[in-house]
Each structure stands twice: as C-alpha cells, then as structure tokens.
C-alpha cells in the first residue's frame, strides 16, 4: 500500500507542471498537465497540456491560433513575441485584448510544443486579467514562464 502511494506521488511529481509563479499569485491547483494560480484580485494563470496527434510545428499552431482568435473571435492582437520555458524550449507568445462586459481584458498566451514519440504535447500558459492589472503583472508572468517545467 505504501509502495502504491509513493508511486502515485512520484508519478504525479514527475508529470505535474511546476512554475515559480509571480509574487502576488498563489497556486490553487496543480496536477499532471495542469496548473492554476490566482492573485487576490483574481488575475488568472492557467497552464494546460493538450495532446497533439498531428505533431504540427509551433509555426503551424501560431497561424492556427491567430486565425481563430483574431479573425474568428475578433480579439485584438497587441503584441507577438518569442518566449522560452524552463526547459529552454522556444515557444511563441501572443498578447491579446478584448472588451468583455464593458471592461477591457488582456491575455498573455504562451504556447510551447513538446515533441513526443507518437504525439506531441501542446503546452498553453494563459494569463488573463483586466487591462490595468495586466500591465502591472505581465512582466512578472513573463519571467515566471521561464521557470515553467
């Protein structure tokens, strides 16, 4: 029984996402391919892993995301930049804005492709909050992304 518990904890630790979240954030949920963090004002960081059988490249996903988020949903692209995670993987980051319920909301979306044997993993880290809070927190979140494993 003890062996099973140790095995499960070890497996979780091996698969769980880790990130040194910025100072004002606390991690509220962590699991395999999942991490959620919040500030007192409920600025959100949500990191998730998605399976990708197509094994498409990061360039492909960048175009696919931009096509959907900008053309289909009507978000506004504020900035686009390269980003690097804690393992040194190169990803891409989009800063988006949309006005929801009369208030401008911004998102920093970072996407990484983790190559696998039969399928890739797409890791998406999203930071979403009001525009003003975003500007105050984004530098810390960008720094935190470099510790994402």
């Amino acid at each position, binding site marked *: 029984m003890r062996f099973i518990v140790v095995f499960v904890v070890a497996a979780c630790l091996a698969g769980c996402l880790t990130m040194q979240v910025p100072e004002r954030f606390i991690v509220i949920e962590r699991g395999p391919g999942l991490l*959620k963090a919040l500030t007192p004002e409920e600025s*959100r960081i*949500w990191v*998730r892993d*998605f399976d*990708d059988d197509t094994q498409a490249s990061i360039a492909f996903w960048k175009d*696919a*995301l931009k096509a*959907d*988020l900008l053309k*289909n*949903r*009507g*978000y*506004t*692209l*504020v900035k686009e930049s390269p980003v690097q995670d804690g393992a040194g993987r190169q990803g891409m980051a989009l800063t*988006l*804005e*949309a*006005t*929801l319920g009369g208030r*401008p*909301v911004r*998102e920093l*979306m970072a996407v990484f492709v983790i190559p696998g044997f039969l399928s890739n993993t*797409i890791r*998406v880290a*999203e930071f*979403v909050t009001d*525009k003003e809070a975003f500007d105050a927190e984004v530098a810390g979140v960008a720094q935190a992304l470099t510790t994402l494993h």
Partner: protein
Amino acid sequence: MLRFLLRCVTRADVGVASLVLWAAGCATSEAAYDRVSSSPAAYYDEPATKVDDGTRASSAGTPGSLGSAADQQTPAPAESGDGKGIEAAKRLVIYTGSMALMVPVADVALTGFLDKVVAMGGYLQTRAATTVTVRVPAAQFFPTLELLRKSGTVTDEQVNATDVTKKVFDIELRLQTADEARKRLIKILESATRIEDVLAIEVQIRRLTEEMELMKGELRNLGDQIAFSTLTVTFMANAPAPRPYPDRTSSRFEWINDVGVEKVLYGF
C-alpha cells in the same frame, strides 16, 4: 563544295537578316506601344512633384483642366520602390483609406495626429467622437499610414486605389470637343442674320456651355480627390468586443476551442 558553302552563307545571311528585321520590328512596335501608352500620362503629368505647398487643387487648378491637380498627384506608395514609383506617378489615382487604432489615450492620440496632418499640408474634413476623416496630400498618404501604424495597435486597415486616368482623359477630350464646337457655333452666330437661326444657335451654345461647366466641375472634383487622399481614422482606447457566439465558428483543432480570454474568465 563551293556551292554548298555559298548555300550555307546565304541561309545564314537570310537567318541573320530575318532576326535583324524581326528585332527591328519588335523594337518599333514596342516603341510605338510606349508612345501610345505613355501619351495620356505624359499629357497629365509633367513634374509629378512640382506642387506640394498644401494648396488645394480645387482652388489652384485652372478651370477646365486638371493642371496643377494632376501635378500634385504623386501617391508614391511607400511599398513601391525600384522604379515602380515612376510608373505609379504616371497614373491618376485616387487613394482612400480607413484605419482603426488602439492607443493608450484616444483624445491625445487624435489631437497629435491632427497636428501632424496640418503640418504636412492636410486638413480635417469631419470629426465624430474619436473618429476623424482627414485629407492629406497624395504624396503623404502612405507615410501617414505608416505613421499611424507606429503610433498604436492597428485593429483594422483598408486602402483603396481607384485609377481615374482614363476617366480624366475622356472628360478632357469631351471638354475639348465641346469647346471647339462652341467656338464654331459662335462664329456661325456672328454671321447669322435670321432671328430663328440666331435663337437656335444660342440654344446650342447655352447647352454646350452648361455641359462644359459640368465637365469642368467634374475635373476639378477629380483633381481634388487625386491631389488629396481621404483617410478615416478611428482612435480607440480599448479593443472592441469580441464577435458574438452566433457569428463564430468552432476551430477544427479541438484544443484551440478550449483556450482564449473567455475560456479563462468563465471556465477557470
């Protein structure tokens, strides 16, 4: 052997002569084409960059001729370098455009933009809230777009170019023809003795005069539009609302449907 060589030389000469003739023919026809194709442009466009003092074409141009209006049109698209600008300058093009920009403070950005428009010889046409329509000298149209792109996040941009070279050419030809006809009628009028003839000729002269005034007005209007491009700019402090759900489609890539601002806000 000699006969064979002679035959070869003769064949070669014929070939060379044919080539020379063909090349000469091509050159001649191309030159002729150039003359024909460039003649309207040359007619309208003398020094494309002659006038750039902010004087409006409608007031500067001689009535009945594009004159300085055509001279002022130098769209010189920033995109066209390497000689294409010369080709573009020969055309009479009306440029219009619109842009929506996200800027930190809309009013401040708008005021700064208007100052720059005035400094470059343009003017404000209309203003409603934070949307302005300005007229800028054609030569400043693309630089102005570039300036706007650098001053904020572009959320929408549209540029239209309408080539009116043929239209202007046609109006000027019709105007010239009408003017000649009018002059002929005036000469006939001078020698007319019967009252009926005089009245009939005067009616025709009046009709032609009215037609000519309309054509001159149209030319002035075109000249103004060519010389000054129209640009509508909307300054926004915030991004617009996303498209409502009924107007959206789902991505074929499942995971993309699970990310985005709304998903994080409402599905966290």
